[in-house]
């Protein structure tokens, strides 16, 4: 499309290819190109260079506005971090803790992954790096009990934000999703408005299965936001567009590296631009 001289079928096909290769999905890509064709007709566009811009417009419309994390102005905010295995939950919590701590917030972490080898130690190192404390029990303990403990500690220490880490779990494992619902219930019982955010961490390299992940995590724990990680790689994370078609969950943050500062607010326009970079 950079070298095209006129708008023709080849150009539309080329653009559709870019969308599909960004993991936007076949159906959503087709729908976006259909919207594009409509705009071209309605606005009588003849310059091929305009096509990419109009397409970005439609993508931005689908993504909506920037959506910040909810922080209660005068009481405890609880964030529950969930997602499938290896997507970056624990690392993201470390980054988020540092970020909030720099904003002057008093942050506490809960080592809710009591299953995986060295999961608690991993979060403790991040807590140390971020300068925040970690509530933990022994490996093998009931994660709901850890969450409960952490909530009591958060309330008694008058902490601003409690972030609860959970074990990675595949969304098709019914017993693990039940466990997650239980953790959420325990949190709700202790603090009625909590969790204030249920953040689903998605790996940008994930394909269409991300849609199923959002659906099932939503069912089990009412997801309020998505954190898209590993956008520093070559994957575009286009699945978030397909997700908007199925479940309106805003992408709130993006992970762009393994360092403690590699977390940014999600900006729809930047994201749309990156698709064509």
């Amino acid at each position, binding site marked *: 499309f950079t070298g095209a001289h006129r708008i023709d079928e080849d150009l539309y096909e080329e653009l559709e*290819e870019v969308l*599909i*290769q*960004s*993991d936007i*999905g*076949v*159906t959503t890509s087709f729908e976006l190109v259909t919207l594009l064709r409509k705009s071209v007709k309605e606005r009588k566009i003849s310059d091929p260079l305009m096509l990419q811009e109009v397409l970005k417009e439609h993508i931005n419309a689908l993504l909506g506005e920037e959506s910040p994390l909810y922080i209660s102005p005068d009481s405890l905010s609880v964030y529950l971090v969930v997602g*499938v*295995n*290896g*997507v*970056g939950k624990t690392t993201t919590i*470390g980054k988020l803790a540092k970020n909030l701590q720099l904003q002057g917030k008093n942050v506490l972490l809960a080592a809710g992954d009591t*299953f*995986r*080898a*060295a999961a608690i*130690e*991993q979060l*403790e*190192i*991040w807590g140390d790096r971020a300068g925040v404390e970690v509530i933990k029990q022994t490996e093998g303990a009931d994660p709901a009990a850890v969450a409960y403990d952490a909530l009591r500690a958060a309330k008694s220490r008058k902490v601003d934000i409690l972030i609860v880490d959970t074990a990675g779990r*595949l*969304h*098709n*494992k019914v017993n693990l999703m039940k466990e997650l619902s239980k953790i959420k219930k325990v949190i709700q019982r202790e603090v009625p408005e909590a969790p204030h955010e249920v953040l689903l961490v998605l*790996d940008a*390299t*994930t*394909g*269409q*299965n*991300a849609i*199923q992940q959002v659906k099932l995590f939503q069912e089990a724990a009412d997801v309020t936001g998505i954190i898209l990680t*590993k956008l*520093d*790689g*070559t*994957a*575009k994370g286009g*699945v978030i567009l397909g997700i908007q078609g199925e479940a309106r969950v805003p992408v709130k943050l993006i992970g762009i590296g*393994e360092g403690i500062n590699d977390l940014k607010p999600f900006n729809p326009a930047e994201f749309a631009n990156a698709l064509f970079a």
Partner: protein
Amino acid sequence: GLSEKLQATFKRLRGKGKLTEADVNEAMREVRVALLEADVNFKVVKDLISRIKERAVGQQVLESLTPGQQVVKIVHEEMINLMGGLESKIQIASKPPTVIMLVGLQGAGKTTHGAKLANLLKKQGKRPLLAACDIYRPAAIKQLEVLGEQIKVPVFSLGQISPVKIAADSLEHARKNGNDILIIDTAGRLHINEELMEELVSIREKVQPNEILLVVDAMTGQDAVNVAEAFHNQLGLDGVILSKLDGDTRGGAALSVKAVTGCPIKFSGVGEKIDALEVFHPDRMASRILG
């Protein structure tokens, strides 16, 4: 799934003699969508479709199958051709130890599968040694040590010093201690990180692995080809382990990775537990991808 869709496409073709190009084109649209939705890479789908088309056009509609079934059969066969046969052998070195090196993106499942492989080989009567060469991720060494303890396999570690030195020393240690298998766990990294890819090349030069295995998350999308290609071009892969196949992803990445590297997928990771390792079955994978 795809079979039903193709049956519908071909409903009006019962009793016809041959599959015409028009018939096949319509079917190819369905196949293309099915494969893309299963996360098979766009370019891999294009090549596959043109090969399937070639075989399907002009085919005599067999007595025993409907035209839809016939096309599905061709699609299935072409996918299995592409994915290669059953090949789960770890090349055992003529002079021990056999050195296996695990590489891949962050979070793919390398550390877990290093332990799974060690466990499998130990059950087969081998004496494996695990080497902790991830010095970056918090508690990575601890993670491997905990897993090693669970399966009673020794873990060689020198703390957070040069991974190349740890690898070299672990080989030395394996030889001295009669370990006939050395499994090197490396840090997750991006294929576009030159420095970290260089580190892998250095490790390879130092220990001359018999097997360099790329661990790939089964839910990887279009990016699978970029990753596999880069790792293969820079390191030379001997095989792939596809992890997290206990999920419900269709797993098109399997086809993409095989198509772009030619490397066999040797194992399937089917769970978080140590015994959740299976031989990779190309025919089962083809059915799963088709949906």
